[in-house]
């Protein structure tokens, strides 16, 4: 059953086509990653889904209800995290949480979330760091056990440990049946937790992929320093590009599976090894450039 169904969504701001006819659906319990570089139209599409802005045309259905006409009903069921968490400066975290509880009329997991995210609820939000503001945004999105979670860049500004905790929270919610729609420009992040992704570029959906397909499209840059001289022809394999070579050093561009090249590298004694995943932009250019 599709929990989120978007058909031919368009949102134009004057001549700017922020979202230009995207369609996708998200099934119950699925974690759907909405990927795209900055300015691709992710946040605009999410704002249409949340009825903050009105689509130019197209249809958005969430839980089989129209996202515009049944907006108030749907917001009882949706937990939302903004891409830039904005808070009332004079309120404390507790006041924000209490305000949400009063409006949503439910409180099931607020205390658990506060504990797991190690958040101090008594500080005025004006003095919070960007990471702590993000934590509060996540608590506000998840505290009422929503049926649908719409998260715009959920791991932004969090340290790696907290990112890990947030991924856990999202997966746990999904295991309990919550449908998760999350935007990101971080490929590694969506690879970790999403089951399916949609890739948006210049307002258009350029691909919908299972995460396993996307993994095959992974790209890395590998920089290796060896103790002895090497024979660079050893590294000429399918999907491998030699970017730079010196007698004891080599830089390789790798597409897809890392295992064959790792095997080759292991034939030498290594001084230093650096594997850097390609940015989403680089992958876009490689696979969806046109």
């Amino acid at each position, binding site marked *: 059953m599709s929990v989120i169904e978007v058909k031919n969504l368009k949102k134009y701001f004057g001549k700017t086509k922020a979202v230009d006819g995207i369609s996708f659906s998200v099934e119950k319990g699925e974690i759907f990653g909405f990927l795209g570089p900055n300015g691709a139209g992710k946040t605009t599409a999410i*704002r249409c889904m949340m009825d*903050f802005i009105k689509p130019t045309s197209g249809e958005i259905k969430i839980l089989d209800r129209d996202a515009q006409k049944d907006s*108030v009903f749907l*917001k009882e069921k949706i937990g939302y995290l*903004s891409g830039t968490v*904005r808070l009332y400066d004079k309120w404390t975290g507790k006041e*924000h949480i209490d305000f949400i509880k009063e409006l949503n009329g439910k409180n099931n997991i607020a205390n658990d979330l506060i504990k797991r995210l190690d958040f101090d609820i008594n500080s005025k939000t004006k003095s919070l760091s960007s990471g702590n503001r993000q934590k509060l945004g996540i608590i506000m999105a998840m505290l009422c056990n929503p049926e649908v979670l719409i998260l715009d860049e959920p791991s932004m500004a969090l340290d790696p440990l907290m990112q890990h905790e947030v991924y856990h929270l999202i997966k746990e919610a999904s295991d309990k049946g919550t449908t998760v729609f999350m935007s990101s420009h971080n490929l590694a992040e969506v690879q970790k937790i999403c089951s399916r992704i949609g890739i948006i570029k210049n307002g258009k959906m350029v691909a919908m992929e299972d995460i396993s397909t996307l993994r095959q499209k992974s790209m890395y840059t590998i920089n290796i320093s060896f103790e002895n001289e090497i024979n660079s022809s050893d590294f000429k394999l399918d999907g491998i590009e030699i970017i730079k070579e010196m007698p004891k050093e080599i830089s390789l561009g790798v597409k897809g599976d890392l295992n064959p090249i790792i095997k080759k590298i292991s034939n030498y004694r290594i001084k230093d090894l650096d594997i850097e995943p390609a940015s989403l932009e680089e992958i876009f250019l490689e696979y969806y450039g046109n």
Partner: protein
Amino acid sequence: MAIKEFFTLFWRTVKDRKVAIIVYCLAVIAFLWMYVALFPAFRDQSATFNEMFKSYPQDFMKAFGVETVNFGSIESYLAMEQFGIIWPLMAGFLMISLAGIMLAGEIEKGTSEILLSRPVSRQQIFWSRYLVGIAVLIVFVFCSVMATIPFAKIYNVDYSLNNFWTMSMACFLFGWAIFSIAFMFSAMFSERSRVYMLTGGLLVLMYVIKIISALKESLENLKYFSFFYYYDANRALVENIIDGKVWVVFISVAVTCTLIGMLVFRKRDVAV
């Protein structure tokens, strides 16, 4: 409209603004206290003042809303001193700043997303904020007009209670119209500065129109386009009358602007 959510929004807004509102009310009460305390001295010298004002050009006096000068009664004295310039300025400033903060200010800061992502309709947000503005106006009008009574008692000054109730109503109508215009702009725009600029500019323009129409006979009819023609402190406080046209103009402007504001806010894109 779900009442519980509506009151949650209403009380939260009141709580957020309470310090500013209390300070503002105390300031206007302090002004009133000063004027009432000074009144006995003015009253004793009223004949001298009346003579002095008689030497001023009539059109000049009329242009600044002073058609009759009489410091013999607290009503006419306050109509000139407190309610002539100070009160409209303070009320205008309060109402415009409140209206600007409550919708456009939230959109500008991005906190509107907190409200819009909750199960509350845009109408609930609009009306809860609007009613906070009206409630603040009522409190401000009460403090700035009716506080005269205890001060008058303290300084043994005679007063007519009915006239002060009439003045309260005139002040409320004036404040309501300004607030509704500012709130309409607040519902339309995403920056507070535009609300302040447009409403403030409109009020300054109306004030200039009033002065010009008083100074130049051929432009006399322009006065009907100025709120400062309808807001007549002398007529309300001294003569205890609010003319029918005052009710019609202020209520029409308030209701029309409020409805336009609500319709726009329901349909518009709310995002920074």
